[in-house]
Structures are given as structure tokens and as C-alpha cells.
């Protein structure tokens, strides 16, 4: 079932939770709502579920207006961060709840409910848990039961509010891959809220980035990472750091780096750089600096570099283990850095967060862009 919202506004007192939000989720997609806390993502999810009413705007489920439809009739499954299992019921009764509250003429016979629950327990790989209480299960198991309970009523839309937020990293990764497989197998439409960009990029077909109650960008995981629509998205998704840049006569100068030719208006800019878009060498042109920290993180190596004339935190560079092993930089080494790619944002007033960037790609490192 497709979801569409149009022109949603929602305030809580003075706080604006959603401001003119339009969003469409095609049937069968798994979409992530991503943003920092307080960005309105949970409010949006709750409005779609019918747990919250918008101040203005419309919600459509499968093309039909649903704004005034009570939550009971929306056919949505809702999964909470803290599972919200009925603590006084067994796992069986939890899963069967949505079926047993139906009116007598719609209610399946007891034998059918039993077999449905058994099927769902098999689906979430917790066959033996029917008689247990929620308090006897681990966090990951509880969340799987919550999911089975939501699926029991065959919802057309599954809404998940930070479903893995309360779990350990390991369980979290396992469970989100499992959710993806489940989604692929059952083809429901799902929308899930997260503040973890890794999770959004890994699981979703499409990512919606929210900030201050507005949608900043909507795109595939690759698009939002490679072509962020704004400085906010750039900084929020993946690591990034800023360098001051100046453009005069179509040439952009960043610190000690050789200037590159990028047509555009003169002025002050901010160059936003991802740590893996940086090259490091011992000699040659580039911005001089000193390695102050080296951390080997499995296949990745992070170098912290104090750049000449740049205060603040050290500049972060990520190298592949392979690249690192060729030079084996150590703390104290003198190095030169170059940029492989950066995005330019005009350094204007408060609106700078929303301006689209100019992407500058210097193939093959600084040498190629040098003139």
C-alpha cells in the first residue's frame, strides 16, 4: 500500500515539529526517515499511523484520504523502539492480540489463530518462545516478537520507530539485515525512523533526510551520500569536515593547496571534505602538516593531521589499509595532503544550510587539478 502525505504541519506549543512536509512512499518500498533528534521524523511517522493528528495537511493510504481515519482502521503495523510488548501476556497472547480483539464475526477460530501465531513465530525464528513472558526475552528477541505481533493482522504498511535503537551493535546489525530480507520476502511497504545514518544507508531503498521539520533530501542511499543536496545532509550523512575556501576570478584557493579552476561568483566559501576523499604523501605539493594520531580500524586507517595554519581539531583522513601499508605513516611524520574531491558551499548568512553545493572532483588527486 502506498503512503502519501501532503502539506503536513504540526506544532507542539512553540516548537515546530513539521513544516509543509510532502512525501510519497511507493508500495513495496523500504524507506528510511533519517535526521537528528527533534527533526520531526517520529512525529511524521506517528501522523501516518494515526497516533497524532496534523495541524493541517493530508495523509493518503493507497490513494485514499486517511487523515481522519482512526488508528484502528488504518491497517498499519507500528513497532516501537522499546518494543511495547504487553508485559502481562505471554508471547503467544501478544502475537494473537490483534486477532483476538476482532469482533466475533471477523475473528478467526482459535485453531486458526494458533496456527497463525506458530507461523509468525517461525518467521521470526523464535519457535519455542510461545509460552514465555516478554521479561524472559532478550532485546533482540523482544523486537522480533513485536514485529511478529504487528504482522499478525496483515498490515499493509509497517511503521517502525527507531526499531533497533535500544539494541547492542551486534544484534542491531543482525536484526536490520534480517528486516531487509523479511521485507524482500513479504513485500509490505515499510517506513522506518532512525537517527543512525549507517542503518539508513544499509537497509533502505530510499532515504528521506529531515531537519527542523523539513525534508532536506530524498534519494537512494548512494545519492544522499554522493550528492548531498545541502551542507546539512553533507555533514549529517557520513563524516565530513570543513575548510575555508576563497574564489577569485574563477579560481578556488583552499589553504596551502594549489588553486583549482572552478567557474563561479567571487566570495568566501566553505569546502566540505569527506575523510576518504583526501590523499596523503610524504613529499610533493599540497598542504603541509604533521601526523598526530594513527588509528588502525580493521581494513581502514584513520590519520589525524595537524595542518599548518589551521587551528581547531586535527584534520581527519581515512586511508585503505593497503594504501597505508605502503607508507606506514606514524605520529610525528611530516606529510602533505591533497583533496580528491570537495563540495563548495557559499559562506552566506543563515540560509547557507539549504543551498545546493558545487561538487569539485579532481581525478587522480591534487596533481591532476594543479595548474
Amino acid at each position: 500500500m502506498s503512503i502519501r502525505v501532503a502539506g503536513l504541519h504540526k506544532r507542539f506549543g512553540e516548537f515546530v515539529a513539521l513544516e509543509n512536509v510532502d512525501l510519497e512512499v511507493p508500495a513495496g518500498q523500504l524507506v528510511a526517515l533519517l535526521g537528528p533528534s527533534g527533526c520531526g521524523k517520529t512525529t511524521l511517522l506517528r501522523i501516518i499511523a494515526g497516533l497524532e493528528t496534523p495541524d493541517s495537511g493530508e495523509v493518503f493510504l493507497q490513494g485514499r484520504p486517511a487523515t481522519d481515519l482512526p488508528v484502528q482502521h488504518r491497517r498499519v503495523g507500528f513497532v516501537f523502539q522499546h518494543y511495547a510488548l504487553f508485559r502481562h501476556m505471554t508471547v503467544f497472547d501478544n502475537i494473537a492480540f490483534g486477532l483476538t480483539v476482532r469482533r466475533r464475526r471477523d475473528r478467526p477460530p482459535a485453531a486458526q489463530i494458533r496456527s497463525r501465531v506458530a507461523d509468525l513465530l517461525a518467521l521470526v525464528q523464535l519457535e519455542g518462545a510461545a509460552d514465555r513472558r516478554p521479561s524472559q526475552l532478550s532485546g533482540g528477541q523482544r523486537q522480533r516478537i513485536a514485529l511478529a505481533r504487528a504482522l499478525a493482522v496483515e498490515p499493509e504498511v509497517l511503521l517502525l520507530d527507531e526499531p533497533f535503537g535500544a539494541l547492542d551493535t551486534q544484534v542491531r546489525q543482525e536484526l536490520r539485515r534480517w528486516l531487509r530480507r523479511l521485507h524482500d520476502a513479504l513485500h509490505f511497504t515499510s517506513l522506518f525512523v532512525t537517527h543512525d545514518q549507517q542503518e539508513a544507508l544499509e537497509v533502505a531503498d530510499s532515504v528521506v533526510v529531515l531537519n527542523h521539520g523539513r525534508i532536506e533530501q530524498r534519494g537512494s542511499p548512494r545519492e544522499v551520500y554522493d550528492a548531498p543536496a545541502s551542507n546539512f545532509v553533507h555533514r549529517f550523512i557520513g563524516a565530513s569536515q570543513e575548510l575555508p575556501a576563497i574564489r577569485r576570478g574563477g579560481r578556488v584557493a583552499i589553504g596551502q593547496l594549489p588553486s583549482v579552476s572552478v567557474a563561479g561568483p567571487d566570495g568566501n566559501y566553505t569546502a566540505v571534505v569527506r575523510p576518504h576523499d583526501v590523499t596523503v604523501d610524504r613529499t610533493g605539493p599540497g598542504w603541509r602538516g604533521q601526523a598526530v594520531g594513527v588509528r588502525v580500524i580493521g581494513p581502514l586507517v584513520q590519520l589525524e593531521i595537524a595542518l599548518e595554519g589551521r587551528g581547531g581539531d586535527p584534520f581527519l583522513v581515512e586511508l585503505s589499509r593497503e594504501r597505508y601499508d605502503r607508507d606506514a605513516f606514524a605520529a610525528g611524520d611530516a606529510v602533505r595532503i591533497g583533496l580528491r574531491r570537495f563540495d563548495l558551499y557559499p559562506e552566506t548568512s543563515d540560509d547557507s544550510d539549504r543551498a545546493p553545493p558545487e561538487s569539485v572532483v579532481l581525478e587522480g588527486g591534487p596533481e591532476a587539478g594543479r595548474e
Partner: protein
Amino acid sequence: MTALAHDSDGETLAAVTRRPRAARGAGRSVLIGSALVYLGLFVLLPFVVVFGEAFAKGVASYFASLADPKALAAMRLTLTVALIVVPLNLVFGVASAWAIAKYEFRGKSALVTLIDLPFAVSPVIAGLIYVLLFGARGWLGPWLREHDIPILFAVPGIVLATVFVTLPFISRELIALMQSQGRDEEETALSLGASGWQTFWRVTLPNIRWGLLYGVLLCNARAMGEFGAVSVVSGHIRGLTNTMPLHVEILYNEYNSAAAFAVASLLAVLALMTLIGRAALDARAPELRRTTLPSPNT
């Protein structure tokens, strides 16, 4: 009691092996010892005295004073009042705790303060409020007399005063509990297709049942034991508007102390049963221990 004191000494001896622990152990047994002495002196001793006095003239006299028609009438009235007051405060307590814990609305903190008011007001003042309202010279007195509706010096007045005094017990117990439980389970139930009524009976009520029972227990104990407020509004008509605590006072003032203590012993038994019930509930639902027990007149 001596056995308990001895136990704490035993622990001190066991802890002597290491100096710092021994020092701590000594401090602990002093604290525990003084608490036990204090409780024994001010709680346990009076309790024992009540029963001692009650049986001072023998078992036959004890049961005779309980079987006295006036005493029976007082018991009946006390039970009647509790049977009316507890359900009233039960419904109000659940409704108000639900509203406060699960919804945001204007004036919520004012409502919470208002619920606590009966604990802040001396019960005698609470009784006087009803005299001012319903008394012969009170605001509603003349109208009530015209329509022949008895409130003051009759059962309705006793019920009203008791409702006032015992109002916070159930709702305070439930507000803390429901706030800690949040709204997620109810919202899940709704999203699974349950009606509001089904959600209440199948999700909310089972989740608060132990807290509710706890509140009912305390509310009942207070409703049966209330003296001050009831004393002001009852009029002390023997066999008609005398509750058990009032009956005890009357008997005592008439130097009939054995009978007074006999009736009082019933109230003491009630208190004992309340305590046992509380302990049982504590064991049953440990999460209740977090909520503090409101004391009357604080």
C-alpha cells in the same frame, strides 16, 4: 524483637575479621538497633497494649462488647461507608491517573496539586468545610432542609468527608505507576485494531492491577479508620451515625475501656491485614516499591 537485635550483633561479629568492615558493621547495628527500639516503643508496644486491654476482662466480655447492638451498628456503618467510598475513589483514581499520566492538557499541574490537597489539609478542617457547606447556616443548608435532604449528621455527610480524606490514595499510587509505563502499549493495542474499551480492559488495567490493589488497600484502611473529619460531620448519634473509631471514643470517654479496646482491636486487626497485604503486593510487584507511600497530613 530481641531475636532480631541478636541477629544484627551476630553480623557484627562475623564482620570483625576485617577492620573497616567491622567499623561499618558496628555503625549498622547501632542504626538498626535504634530503629527497632524506636519502632518497638512507639508502634509495637501500643499494638500489644490494645489487645491486652481488650481482653483485660476476659474473652467473654470481649465478645460481648463486640456483639453489643451499638457496636454492631458502628461496624455496619463503617463497612457501608467503605463500600461506597472505595469504589468512588477507585473510579476517580483510575480516571484522573489516566488523564494525568497519558495526556497533556492545560491545568494538569493544578489538577495534580488539587489531588494532593486532602493530604495537606487537617481532617478536622476537611470536616468543617462540609459543615460550612451543608450545615444549617451553611451555603446549601437552607435549601437542603427545604427539600428534606439529610447530609450533615447523617450517612451522606460521613461518606463525603471520607471521600475527601481518602481521595489521593489510589490516584497518587496510579499516577506514578502509569507515568513510568508510558503510552506505548496502549498505542500498540490501538494500532492492532483494539477499541479504546478493549485497550483499557486488556492492556491498561492488567498493567496497573497491583498498584490499583495497593491503592485500594490503603484507601480502605483510611476510610475505615478515619476519625477527625468524620467526627465533625457525624453528630455522634449512637446506633445511627457512629462509625467504629467514633464508637471507640465514646466508650472510652464513658470509662468503658475494655469495650473500647475490644472495638479498637478490630481496627488494629484491619491495620495488620493491610500491612500483610502491602507486603504481599510488594513481593508480587517489585516495581511498586519505587513509588513512595504518601503519609496522611503531609
